[in-house]
């Protein structure tokens, strides 16, 4: 079969593009496997139901594919993923106009046993329940900072994810920790 130069270059370009897309898909799926659980965990702290969180995660990784496909920066992709996830989750929560997802009754009692001694176990459960109650009562921004820090993000990354200043992150974490420390008082 005879092909002219233009169509053969087009065919080469198309096959190269297909190969690039396939490689990109592989990368995105690898990152999905790596970050789905922590992202889902973080989104659940924004008081979205798990099924809504799964939704958001899917949208995040589709957006990541588009982001990478258009040749944009690959720097700090984890921060990018959480930032997009944070924004999409808030958007979804607003769209659903869902009131706060309250922790079901007894959820705090389901803290898993870790101490052999019944008295210690009870004391630990009670302390964990108090801590979680404090966290649950924190303002959105403080709670987000705390959970992102718990995910291992540095202050600068948290500031980028939430779109706030570095100083606000430090203040927010300081405030939250003070409340947690005083949970027993």
């Amino acid at each position: 079969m005879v092909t002219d130069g233009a169509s053969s270059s087009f065919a080469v370009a198309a096959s190269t593009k297909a190969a690039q897309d396939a490689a990109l898909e592989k990368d995105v799926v690898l990152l999905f496997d790596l970050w789905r659980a922590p992202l889902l965990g973080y989104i659940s702290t924004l008081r979205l139901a798990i099924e809504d969180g799964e939704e958001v995660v899917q949208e995040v990784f589709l957006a990541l594919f588009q982001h990478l496909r258009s040749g944009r920066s690959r720097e700090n992709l984890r921060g990018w993923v959480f930032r997009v996830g944070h924004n999409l989750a808030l958007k979804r929560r607003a769209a659903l106009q869902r009131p706060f997802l309250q922790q079901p009754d007894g959820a705090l009692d389901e803290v898993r046993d870790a101490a052999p001694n019944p008295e210690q176990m009870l004391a630990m459960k009670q302390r964990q329940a108090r801590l979680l109650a404090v966290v649950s009562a924190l303002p959105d921004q403080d709670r987000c900072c705390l959970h992102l820090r718990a995910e291992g993000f540095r202050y600068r990354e948290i500031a980028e994810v939430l779109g706030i200043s570095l100083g606000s992150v430090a203040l927010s974490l300081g405030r939250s920790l003070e409340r947690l420390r005083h949970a027993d008082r």
Partner: protein
Amino acid sequence: MRHSDAHLTEQDLLLAIDGELPLEETQHVRTHLEGCWTCRTKMREMEDTIADFIRARDETMPPFPAADGPRALLKARLRELARSEPSSAWERVRLGMLRRRVAAVALVAGLGALFVIGSLQTGEADHDGAAHRSHFANASVPDPQITPGAVLPVTKDDVCGTDVVEAVRVVPVDVARQVFAAYKIERPEPRAYEVDYLITPALGGSDSIRNFWPQPYRNTIWNAHIKDALEDHLRRMVCQGEIELAKAQQEIARDWIATYKKYFRTDAPLAEHATFLKDRPWE
């Protein structure tokens, strides 16, 4: 200016714990801690609180569903996305449709749950909900005041250049709620309606709320199955050059039943279209 004998603030201690202090200040904190039992105790308390929070958080994190299903779903959607070039208005329509499909699984589950919750809450609710429906609720045609139809600026090439016929369209739950509310349908019966585009996206219809209405499957012979069949037929005609895209949009928006009768040359729905199902019913 910092005095070496002044106690450290909690902020300084937290920044030190998190490794967020500049080098010079880190050295100052370290020196102070070496000589100050009070600040060392406070720092240890803070670290204990952090550790307790992390334990409580990890132990109460809800169990997430296995990743296999979501991973497979993502792969399928990525492949679909790879086939698209999101440059034109039409592609944005397709991306919108893809996003709706992304939403499909959870939305169906969510809507099902909403219905169950709604049923539980209403308790003695009437079974057909007839008392709550407006006169358009069981009608075959939309209320032109609420649903006049809306389109995107797309051309015939946009519409026909992409295979969207098999796309499963799922209307987001918040949009569906708005549509039912606009039509004063308080407790829609599951699988009884299709929250449908008046002008289908396959003909350039947009996602505007003005382009949706709750089309019943039952109670009328001119139902959602029949309209789905018309939508496919019109798109085929547009793509084969038998009718202008704008004309198809106008006709289906003005009176889809008359349009069906005109193009299928019949006064009643054809039997083969009675079970035609292209779009997903509202659940």
